[in-house]
């Protein structure tokens, strides 16, 4: 089997398995959250029931271009994860992710609804908050491995986390922002808090909301892949370890989500930049010193 066929197989597996895994993670997350609140909680397959129902509802489009924008959003999110799992350029995939978010922004603002516009501008603020750390993460990987390609990054003797502990901490911090979990769910207010209705997704209903949900699942899997990237090295044992670490990180996100109230946007930016500069910046300076 040549390299091309392997790549195609991996890509197909990713496109099919990622939403299943993402949906399961979502379901497990909702169950764990419910248990944390001493509730029984929905069944683990609940997210799939939700998706099925959304697909069966009558479509409503507030603006004609919304369908196209949402599909583009999904496409670019899938592309981002695909590039990571196919061992391509990390930096490039991060730029594609930003493009995807722009499509979501337009899908929300094109409707002209004040609530989804507020949500969309807040989404941009979230981007401002997490983007520096994402860039520093890529740079950190580059300094350690001498390449932006994920295929090279997983091919080292020691796990990158040994060199990048500060960047790892900063990345976990911005993960909460990226996954739109409390205390940083400022762009999509969660179910019980409805002061901006549903934020960026206010005007996204029925099938378009199903597309949004799917994109979120792909995104979760891709972000967990990024976490795993910190752990994986040449040794095959590191792969199960990476999966366990990714699960632990997901659990930590749920815990933070369940025991914190929403923060103001400006506080979020200040805090995330502070963590980025202190943890990731110091880590990077040390790296430059070590690898000089």
């Amino acid at each position: 089997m040549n390299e091309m066929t392997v790549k195609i197989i991996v890509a197909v597996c990713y496109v099919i398995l990622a939403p299943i895994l993402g949906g399961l993670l979502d379901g497990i997350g909702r169950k764990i959250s419910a248990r944390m609140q001493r509730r029984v909680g929905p069944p683990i397959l609940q997210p799939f029931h939700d998706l099925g129902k959304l697909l069966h509802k009558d479509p409503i489009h507030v603006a004609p271009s919304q369908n196209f924008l949402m599909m583009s959003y999904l496409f670019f999110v899938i592309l981002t994860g695909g590039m990571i799992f196919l061992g391509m350029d990390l930096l490039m995939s991060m730029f594609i992710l930003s493009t995807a978010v722009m499509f979501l922004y337009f899908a929300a603002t094109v409707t002209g609804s004040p609530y989804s516009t507020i949500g969309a501008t807040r989404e941009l603020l979230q981007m401002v908050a997490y983007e520096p750390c994402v860039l520093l993460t890529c740079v950190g990987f580059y300094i350690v491995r001498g390449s932006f390609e994920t295929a090279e990054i997983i091919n080292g003797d020691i796990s990158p986390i040994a060199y990048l502990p500060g960047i790892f901490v900063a990345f976990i911090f911005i993960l909460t922002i990226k996954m739109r979990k409390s205390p940083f769910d400022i762009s999509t207010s969660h179910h019980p808090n409805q002061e901006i209705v549903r934020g960026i997704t206010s005007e996204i209903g029925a099938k378009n909301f199903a597309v949004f949900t799917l994109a979120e699942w792909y995104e979760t899997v891709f972000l967990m892949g990024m976490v795993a990237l910190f752990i994986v090295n040449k040794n095959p044992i590191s792969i199960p370890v990476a999966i366990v670490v990714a699960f632990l990180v997901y659990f930590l996100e749920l815990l933070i989500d369940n025991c914190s109230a929403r923060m103001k946007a400006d506080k979020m930016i200040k805090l995330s930049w502070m963590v980025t500069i202190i943890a990731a910046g110091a880590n990077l300076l040390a790296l430059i010193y070590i690898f000089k």
Partner: protein
Amino acid sequence: MYNITRSPWVMHYDGSSCNGCDIEVLACLTPVYDAERFGIINTGDPMQADILLVTGGINTQNAPVVKQLYDQMSDPKVVVAVGVCACTGGVFKDCYNILGGADQVIPVDVYVPGCAARPQAIIDGIVKGIGVFQERLEKMEKGELKNQEEKEEAGKEE
């Protein structure tokens, strides 16, 4: 036929109620009753909601609001009136500004009596509503229920 009964998303609208029923609706989501077991989510967005819970009567001010919320929900959709106020106007029935129950402006599928309606009764009402919800989907797929586009066209012809 696809089974959509496992994921009813509820939107709650508070008409001119005394807030007694609203508290009971929220009580359904607490650990004691935990409506999320059935996949029920309390969403604030009509575009994502399947079931409209109305509490309190309809007055001249909120009648257009209820109508608009109902119109923004996508088919299939169900309306559940919670409490005697939403069913008939209740204790406020004879007030000068009250038009009556929710069925004065939108078609109501399930009436949940009580003042205030108990959480058990509300969950029971929603579960009844879920049955109607599935029936609507079946009708919609058979073509018996007009979908959004056909409605828009019919609107244009008028």
